[in-house]
Every structure is written in structure tokens, then in C-alpha cells.
């Protein structure tokens, strides 16, 4: 009974960590540019596919992850520069459509490069399950949770301690004022896309041994990352992390106790309920709009 619950919590925590990273990616880009980047899931996919295919052809794992991460960052910057930035003053709807277009486009390219098959990546440190109070855990889950934890702390420090991080924060509060004090807001937008892409790609690489990699792996991960970000209050970093963990754990509990067929629906049921009853998310501030 308890072991069962613990088992669900552990698997929820694992997948929740990935949702948290994706949600954080959404929030960072939203803060810097007010764009909801639907291509976030594709960054995850690039990370997963690159590390799986590169290691299969003999590249050492750390190098493969770094290449995947670099590739995703490059793609992120290109999307920001050639699609998002050109439509700078466009409406929310237009920007959403652009990033959805980018995500479909990237999936198409990925299919061309890597094919439609599932790619396998070996677990980083073996497959012997770890027993914890009657529940068992794959060592890879520790990699996922640990990596996500380190990245989340690093992002926190980045925003609190570095000049670039503070510049991004300043831009998110007031773009014009940031520009006036000499912050290059265009570069801030590019940096935020690169940062989110890196988060996604590393997340994709560590989760790949659990989920397998395929070109469509980013769709659901990305959409659930989006629900995590909205759940926590869009643009609220710690909120997105909490949102990701809540979605992941609720999903695992739902799959375990209610119905595994409806696993993917759980996140969206939660988000509908939240939107209907507390529309600014769990931690978001009430927004006002200028004319």
C-alpha cells in the first residue's frame, strides 16, 4: 500500500522534473519576450535524439550531450532571430502561431535527419533498480532528478548573481526602461531562447533512456511543460518548477489509481480547473494591461 504510493510518487517526481525544466524554459522566454514558445518541446527532442544517435555512432556520452545542447541552443537562437524578432510588435496570437510553426518545422527537419524510428540510449549508470522502502527506482531517475535539481539551482543563481541574468530580469519587468539603461534587449531575447533551449536539450538527454527518443517525443513533454508554467503562474520561475512537479506527481497518481489510459489527460484537467477557478495560476500575480 505505502510502497505502491511511494512508487507512484517516485515516478511522478522523475517525469515532473522534466516538466519543471520545460516549464522553466517557457517562463524564461515568456519573461524576456512575452512569447509562448511552443517549440520548447522540440528542444527536448533535439537533446534526446542527438545524444541517442551520437552515442550509437561511438561519440562519448558527455560530448554527445554537449553537441545536442549546442545544437538546440543554435536552433533556439535562429528561431528567435529569424522568426520571433521579425514579428516583434505582433499580437500574442501571431507569436503563438509562429512558434507553433517553428515546432512543426523542426519536427519535420528532425524526421528527415533522424527518421521516424525510436532511438535507444543506454542508461547512464546501469539498469539495476534501487530499492527504497519497498519501492524500486531506476538509477536513471536519480540522474533525471539530480540533473534537473542542479540546473534549477544554477538558473536561480544565474538570475540572482550575474549581470546577464539581471539584464534578462530587468527586461522582463520593463522592456523600454531596460533599453534606456543600456541593456541590449535584442540580445536578451536571444540569450533567453538559448538558455531555454539548453535546459530543454539537457532534460531531453537525461530522460531519453527512460522514454526512448523519437521525433515526436517533444510534443507531449512540451505541452505539459506549458501547463506546468501556466499552473505556476506564467513567467514565475519557481512557480513553473512547482507546477512541473505537481503535474508529474498528479499524473503518476492518476495513472496508478484511476486509469493509465487517461494519464495524459490529467495535466490538462488540472490546468482547466486552475484556469476556471484561479486564472493567474497558483503563484502568479494579477496582471493589468496598458491601453
Amino acid at each position: 500500500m505505502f510502497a505502491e504510493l511511494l512508487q507512484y510518487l517516485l515516478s511522478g517526481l522523475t517525469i515532473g522534473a522534466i516538466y519543471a525544466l520545460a516549464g522553466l524554459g517557457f517562463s524564461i522566454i515568456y519573461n524576456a519576450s512575452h512569447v509562448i514558445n511552443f517549440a520548447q518541446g522540440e528542444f527536448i527532442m533535439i537533446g534526446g535524439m542527438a545524444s541517442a544517435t551520437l552515442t550509437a555512432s561511438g561519440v562519448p556520452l558527455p560530448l554527445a550531450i554537449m553537441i545536442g545542447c549546442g545544437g538546440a541552443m543554435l536552433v533556439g537562437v535562429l528561431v528567435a532571430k529569424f522568426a520571433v524578432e521579425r514579428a516583434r510588435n505582433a499580437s500574442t496570437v501571431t507569436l503563438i502561431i509562429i512558434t507553433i510553426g517553428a515546432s512543426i518545422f523542426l519536427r519535420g527537419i528532425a524526421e528527415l535527419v533522424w527518421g521516424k524510428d525510436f532511438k535507444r540510449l543506454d542508461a547512464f549508470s546501469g539498469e539495476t533498480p534501487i530499492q527504497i522502502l519497498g519501492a524500486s527506482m531506476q538509477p536513471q531517475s536519480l540522474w533525471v532528478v539530480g540533473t534537473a535539481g542542479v540546473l534549477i539551482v544554477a538558473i536561480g543563481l544565474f538570475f540572482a548573481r550575474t549581470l546577464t541574468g539581471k539584464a534578462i530580469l530587468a527586461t522582463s519587468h520593463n522592456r523600454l526602461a531596460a533599453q534606456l539603461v543600456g541593456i541590449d534587449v535584442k540580445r536578451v531575447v536571444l540569450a533567453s531562447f538559448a538558455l531555454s533551449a539548453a535546459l530543454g536539450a539537457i532534460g531531453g538527454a537525461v530522460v531519453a533512456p527512460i522514454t526512448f527518443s523519437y521525433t515526436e517525443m517533444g510534443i507531449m513533454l512540451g505541452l505539459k511543460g506549458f501547463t506546468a508554467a501556466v499552473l505556476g503562474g506564467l513567467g514565475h520561475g519557481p512557480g513553473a518548477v512547482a507546477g512541473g512537479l505537481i503535474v508529474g506527481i498528479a499524473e503518476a497518481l492518476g495513472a496508478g489509481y484511476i486509469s493509465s489510459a487517461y494519464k495524459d489527460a490529467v495535466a490538462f484537467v488540472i490546468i482547466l480547473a486552475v484556469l476556471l477557478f484561479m486564472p493567474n495560476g497558483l503563484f502568479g500575480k494579477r496582471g493589468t494591461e496598458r491601453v
Partner: protein
Amino acid sequence: MNALLHGRLTGLLALAAVIAVLPAFLPNNFYLDIAILAGFNAVVCVGLNLLIGYAGQISLGHAGFFGIGAYASGVLVGVYGWPPALALLAGAVFVGLLAFLVAKPILRLKGHYLAMATLGIGIIVSIVLRTESGLTGGPDGMMVEPFKIFGVELYGEKVWYWVVGVLLVGVVWLSLNLIDSPMGRALRAVHGSEVASEVVGVDTARFKVLVFVLSAVFASVAGSLFAHYAGLITPAKADFFKSIELVTMVVFGGMASTFGAVVGAVVLTLLPQALTVFQDYQQIVLGGILMATMVFMPKGLLPTLAALLPARRRA
């Protein structure tokens, strides 16, 4: 005003004329079938265009409403033996209520929240359709009986072509009237600046809710009729990609242009037929069109072309 009315009627008559003469140029039922599919898409897109183009809101779950309509007809007629017209009505009423219940609180918020909510509804609908295989046949889909009304059975491409044609003209007529009504002007104000239009006394949320409900009902009715026409429906008709496809049609044809939505639906229904030759590139083309349209001609195909014609104001 007179000129506006004139322009509106010209467009509507032109559309009706195209629909009337088109079958003469279609060599066989294969082409007729594509025209019918384009027509169904156009009906949904005209409604979606009201939402995207005039209310400045985006729905990422319209295929879900289409799917509810389709399966309402499939299940109520096939399993419970309802008359098709009643099943269509029931689907439309259900979708209307659902849209109303969801939109009322959410449309008081701005921008992306409706996108999130509709995305959620769409995905939940497609998961339910895939899972409840006892009723819906699961991922393989279900057969749907032909549409019968007053003892007459609608059957074959030739009959359905005219059904869809008349439906499309009706939906376009309704939209054009709506856009030119005081409410339509209010909607354009909503798109321009929501706060400003509220300040001058427009109840923006109410109009947005109404448009959202209307566009969802259009999708449901199209879904019901499509189910009877096609005879086979699958959950794929209701999934996220289908929703994105519908949005693509609207923005490609031209946001805030009713005829643009029709043109977008027709072009993008034809495109995959032409693209089957190099199917591997389909996603790249679709994604590329979405991005390129928004970046290079954010108003969409028809309004951009119309702007190139001097001395003619677009309808």
C-alpha cells in the same frame, strides 16, 4: 454603408457562383471529394476566423469541437438510434454549452489563457475518443450511418457537394452579417485595444464569449455532417494536429477576412493532395508556411493580395 453592403453581397455572390460552376470543371468523384473536404474545412475556418481575426483570441482545440460533433452523430445515431438531425442538434447544443461554460470565466483574461484552455479541451476530447472504445471504436474509429431526413437519404459525392456548398454560403453570409453588425464593430474594437473598448462601454467579454460559442458550434455542425458524409470517423479528426491545421488555414488565408478563411481552407486542403508526392516534407512545408505567413505577410494571403490591387478597398 450602401457601398459596404454592396461589397458584401458581391463577395457572397462570387462565392456562390464559384460553388455553382465548380462541378463542371471537376472530372470525377475524386476531385468532388476533395472539394467537399475543403468545404467542410472552410465552414470550420470561417467560424474560427471570427474568433482569431475579430476577437483576437486563438483556439488550439477546434478539432475537438469538430470531433464532438462527429462522434455525437456517430454514437447517437449508430448506437442509440436517434434521428440524424436530432443527433446533430444535440452535438451542437452540447458543444455550445461546453464552450460557454469554459469561455465565460476564461475570456475575462487576456491572450494566451484561452489558447491553453482550448488546447486542454482538445487533447482531453481526443484521449476520451481513443479510450472509450466501447462507444467510439477507439483509435480505429467507427462507422457512421448515412444522413436521413424526412425519408430522404443523403448519399454520394454529388449530393453532398451541394449540401456543403449551401452550408458554406450560409455560414459565410452569417459571418459577414455579424461582422457588419454593431456587435462586429465592437469585436474589431476588442481586437484593437481591449481596455480602450471597455472604457468606451463595450462589454468585451460578452462579445468574445458569443463569438467563441458560435465558432465552436460551426465546428460541431461541420463535424456531424462530415461524419455522415465520410461514413467513417477516427480520433485523428479531433486531435491537436487537426486543430493546428485549422489555425494554419485561417492565418494563411487571412485573419479578419472571411473569404480569406475560405481561400486558406481550400488551398491547404489541396496542398497535402499535391504534396503526397514528397510526403516526407509535409511537416516542413506546413511549419514553414505558418512561420513565413506570419513573418512576411502577417495579414494573410487574401488581404495581402487585395492590398496589391490599387483603388479597390477590401471587403
